[in-house]
């Protein structure tokens, strides 16, 4: 089994998949597809942790993988989907930058990360490219937050950043102590619930979920 994972470079495939879902997020305008992309990203993240746990035989990593799967893979997507349904908005209609350009820019971001991290950093982790991929995912999440107008897509951008951070921490330290991970995940869950409620309130008060409208004074 371990040889099989090595031979088919499963870890490489999953980490490239994580990068790919983050990049693909730039191409989607339908909010449902955005949520689904995030779900796939989280599942890949949790399966990566599970496989690394299997490879090095650490039991506490299995717990981390299960926690990731439950919170990021199931609870958050269900919650996000419910918000999308309540807001009655289906598309992020007018992003600041069009699809093709934002895809290209995210590709360039990945290139910049690879170029700047290819020398001078020694990573003692399980794969030499996971740190690069995780930092690229963080930057792409930031980029999504900058270029999207809707509150909900910005929240998804933030979640991508968090997935990237989690992966970065994981690739450097093989996972933090379970209690810290529990705390981070709980924080995340609460944060997203509050942000979701904010998004619904913005929609109710301004009759639009477009964050540009927040600069208009109400009197």
């Amino acid at each position, binding site marked *: 089994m371990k040889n099989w994972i090595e031979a*088919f*470079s499963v870890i490489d495939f999953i980490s490239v998949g994580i*990068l790919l879902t983050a990049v693909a997020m730039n191409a989607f305008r339908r909010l449902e597809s955005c949520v689904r992309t995030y779900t796939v990203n989280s599942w890949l993240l949790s399966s990566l942790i599970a496989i690394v746990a299997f490879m090095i035989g650490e039991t506490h990593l299995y717990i981390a993988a299960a926690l990731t799967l439950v919170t990021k893979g199931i609870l958050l997507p269900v919650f996000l989907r419910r918000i999308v349904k309540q807001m009655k908005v289906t598309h992020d209609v007018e992003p600041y930058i069009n*699809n093709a350009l934002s895809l290209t820019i995210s590709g360039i971001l990945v290139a910049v990360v690879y170029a700047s991290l290819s020398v001078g950093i020694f990573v003692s982790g399980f794969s030499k490219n996971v740190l690069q991929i995780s930092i690229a995912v963080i930057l792409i999440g930031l980029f999504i937050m900058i270029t999207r107008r809707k509150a909900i897509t910005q929240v998804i951008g933030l979640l991508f950043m968090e997935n990237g951070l989690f992966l970065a921490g994981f690739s450097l330290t093989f996972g933090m102590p379970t209690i810290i991970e529990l705390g981070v995940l709980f924080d995340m869950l609460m944060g997203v619930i509050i942000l979701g409620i904010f998004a619904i309130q913005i929609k109710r008060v301004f009759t639009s979920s477009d964050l540009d409208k927040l600069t208009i004074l109400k009197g």
Partner: protein
Amino acid sequence: MEYLQFIIIIIFSPLIQGLIKKLKANMQGRVGPGVLQPYYDLIRLLRKDMVVSRVTSWIFKATPYIVFASTVSAAMIIPIITTRSSFGMMGDVIAVIYLFAAGRFFMALAGLDAGTAFGGEGSSREMTVSILVEPMMMLSIFTAAISAGSTNVARIAETQNLFYSPPHILALSAFVVAVVAETGRIPVDNPDTHLELTMIHEGMLLEYSGRYLALMEWAHYMKQMLLFTLAADIFFPIGIDSGGAPALIAASFGIYLCKMFLMACAMALIESARVKLRFFQLPSLLGGAFVLAFLSLLTYIMIGK
């Protein structure tokens, strides 16, 4: 033997076209024309008289021959059933891509030459698509070329290993989009009709008739089969012969036909499952595929396999 393998492309390319049409018809619950229909069409067109507009220049008359000749020269460079390819030592994959580009350049000029609205429309669209497709195709091939250490298609075909790595999969998916766009198939262009305002390839050929039309169509079929062959050589070269023993070449020929059949199935499946995109939505599809190709190169450099 290896000097004659390009004849396979010339002879079998209409068959592949007929096969895709037949498979597509079957998938959509129609009977469809027979597999040999493109041959009958070509023979019929070759026998017919031509109508050439009085306002056209020499470009209109020269283009069918240029397009046909450039496609056949590309066929001579690509290894088809044996990697000891006909004139492979003289050219490589970059030459193949630019031979296609030369044909496309003259085709676009000929579309403009007659001065009809549809011809100009087709030419302008074809050039727009090709601007997006060409670099993407180059990048996805370069991923394989770097891992083989050569841009010669024969060397790439010989050195590919069986175990696929992420860069290969990414490059392959970008290449599939490139093939769909280059052959004018459904998410990009509709090959079945020349009665649509959205046509790209057919728009440029609208003024052609008789022998010229036959040559242009034939060249298009050959280009399609060549792109399939290129995909087979670069991404799944399993079974391609490199020695030159007659028995092995025969086996390689059988495997080659199987690969072509599988790719025809894949094309028919893509065409049946997708809808044609609006022209202004194409940049996001092709841009996405470009980013895939770009990432494949990057991940290749990172993972290094």
